């Protein structure tokens, strides 16, 4: 991960390792004493205003999601908020025919992304890291889908999957009545169709992350391995891949978050119709749909929040601990 190297190396260079902590403190105190009243106000505003905005719009709303999940509210007056305990969750887990399929689809989304486009992205990165000609050209082609908006990707893939006019059905002759293959509407097919589009984008993203990781691998490792008579695959498996550990962590977290965030593509594709329900779609439909139930929608959001934090918090603690040690 490049963030680590940028933080670690310069700081280690500027501050001698054993005396790192005390020296830092002295710097802080030194700064403090020189500050005028106006400086202190400036600093307070510089730290305070952005924090206030971020906390108010992101964390207060996240906590409000948790609280509202235990209530019913019509959204009109604050006095109409009623505490209902776990009712929303009971209903969600036992009565909502879309909930468990949605959870299942989010899990499938993650499993497919981590098993197919992620290793493929790594494979491409290893090939493109070989100092070959045209490597920029290839990289641009693979990375192009990452730059384009998910909404646009949804429209482009609709042109491929459209049962009447799409590329696939036109080629295999399935666009005549009676032979239709409905890639977008058929609940047995549509999740896989949309996952192909998602994988198409994900592979390029992973390729770029791995390329950055590979650039930081010490070239002498590779040479030493070659001198020992290891072949390409052995070198990769025993030498290169283990040194990519920090990149692998980032890739894992990014992939989980992508699987939880998946929304735009499916929404454009078929609005999350049967077969492609996702947690994010259920939350959104509850807001922009006809029957907006605030407490109930929040309960779905809480499920999403709990899963996300279970991934985010351990990852960030590990990252920041590493930084503190540096």
């Amino acid at each position, binding site marked *: 991960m*490049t*963030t680590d190297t*940028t*933080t670690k190396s310069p*700081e280690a260079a500027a501050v001698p390792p054993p005396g790192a902590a005390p020296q830092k403190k002295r710097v*802080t105190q030194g*700064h403090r004493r*020189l500050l005028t009243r106006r400086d202190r106000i*400036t600093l307070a505003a*510089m*730290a305070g205003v*952005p*924090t206030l*905005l*971020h906390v108010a*719009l992101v964390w207060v*709303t*996240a906590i409000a*999601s948790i609280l509202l999940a235990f209530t019913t509210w019509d*959204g009109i007056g604050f006095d109409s908020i009623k505490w209902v305990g776990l009712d929303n969750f009971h209903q969600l887990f036992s009565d909502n025919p879309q909930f468990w399929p949605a959870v299942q689809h989010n899990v499938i989304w993650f499993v497919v992304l981590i098993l197919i486009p992620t290793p493929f992205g790594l494979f491409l990165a290893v090939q493109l890291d070989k*100092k*070959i*000609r045209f490597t920029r*050209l*290839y990289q*641009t*082609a*693979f*990375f192009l889908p990452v*730059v384009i*908006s998910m*909404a*646009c990707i949804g*429209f*482009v*893939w609709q*042109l*491929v999957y459209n049962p009447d*006019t799409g590329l696939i059905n*036109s*080629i295999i002759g399935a666009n005549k009545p009676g032979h239709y293959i409905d890639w977008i509407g058929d609940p047995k097919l549509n999740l896989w169709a949309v996952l192909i589009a998602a994988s*198409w984008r994900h592979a*390029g993203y992973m390729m770029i992350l791995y390329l*950055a990781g590979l650039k930081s691998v010490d070239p002498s490792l590779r040479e030493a391995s070659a001198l020992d008579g290891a072949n390409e695959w052995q070198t990769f498996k025993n030498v290169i891949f283990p040194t990519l550990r920090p*990149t692998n962590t*980032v890739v894992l977290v*990014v992939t989980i978050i992508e699987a939880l*965030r998946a929304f*735009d593509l499916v*929404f*454009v594709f078929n609005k999350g119709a049967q077969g492609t329900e996702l*947690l994010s779609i259920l*939350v*959104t439909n509850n807001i922009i749909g006809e029957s907006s139930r605030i407490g109930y929608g929040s309960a779905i*959001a809480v499920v*999403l*929040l709990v899963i*996300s934090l279970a991934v*985010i918090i351990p*990852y960030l603690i590990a990252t920041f601990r590493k930084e503190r040690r540096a």
Partner: protein
Amino acid sequence: MSSTTVAAPLKKRTPVRPGRVLLHVFLAGTALAWLAPLLWAIFSALRPYSETSAKGYVSWPDKLSFDNFTNAFEQSDMLHYFGNTLLIAVPAVLLTLFLSSCVAFYVSRFDFRVNLALLLVFTAGNLLPQQVIITPLYRLYLLTNLPGITASGKLYDSALGLVLIHVAFQSGFCAFVLSNYMRSLPHELTEAALVDGASVWRLYWQITLPLCRPAMAALATLLSIWIYNDFFWALVLISTGENMPITSALNNLSGQYFTDPNLVAAGALLTAIPTLIVYFALQRQFVSGLTLGSAKG
């Protein structure tokens, strides 16, 4: 690729040529397959609807023209929606960079104790799925009355509301990246200036910020593309179709104006053009920004 890097391994490489050729065939084939969906969209967009409906979509083209592009652009008044995006994205990018560099400056130069806690809050917030906060946010936007400030009189359905949520959400990632960057700058610089009696503001504005230019450029590129590509916030927080930025408007336009697949293809491709221009012009910034803080989802 510079000529030196190509020339050096050439001598060694001579015996393994067949492997290299195979690799190039594989990479070129895969790259072409990767571009196929986009090329298909371009091909469809270039053909008149009358021709494709008569001959089928997989057929030799008699006539290729940009008519679909001009029609899609004019019929749906796309320029208006590009304008909406500009009105949202430009302030959002500038404000995000300004606010996150302020936070980064504070935590990296002055307060090491709150440093980690603050960064943790910012970064974690940025990794949350947007849907986690949308229900209360939607209510908050509906309840916030701003008569006279926004056209709708509320935060809901206004460009201001979108700018604020973009800034709040994205500043987490930028603060993280920038504080790492600022910590790598030598402390003596700010130290000396403080002793000389410079104000904190000058320290930030005239000494620290100019040194952060590479990181800021990378983040600005990344943010522009992300905010341009955003679909979700505007979908929920904007109710008037007229007020939507282009990426979210595409969904409505495709039902209203783009009546055949060829027009849909042209419309969708038109929305991708600005991102592609930014990407090709600033590819290096984009990629370095992405790997700079690869923790971003």
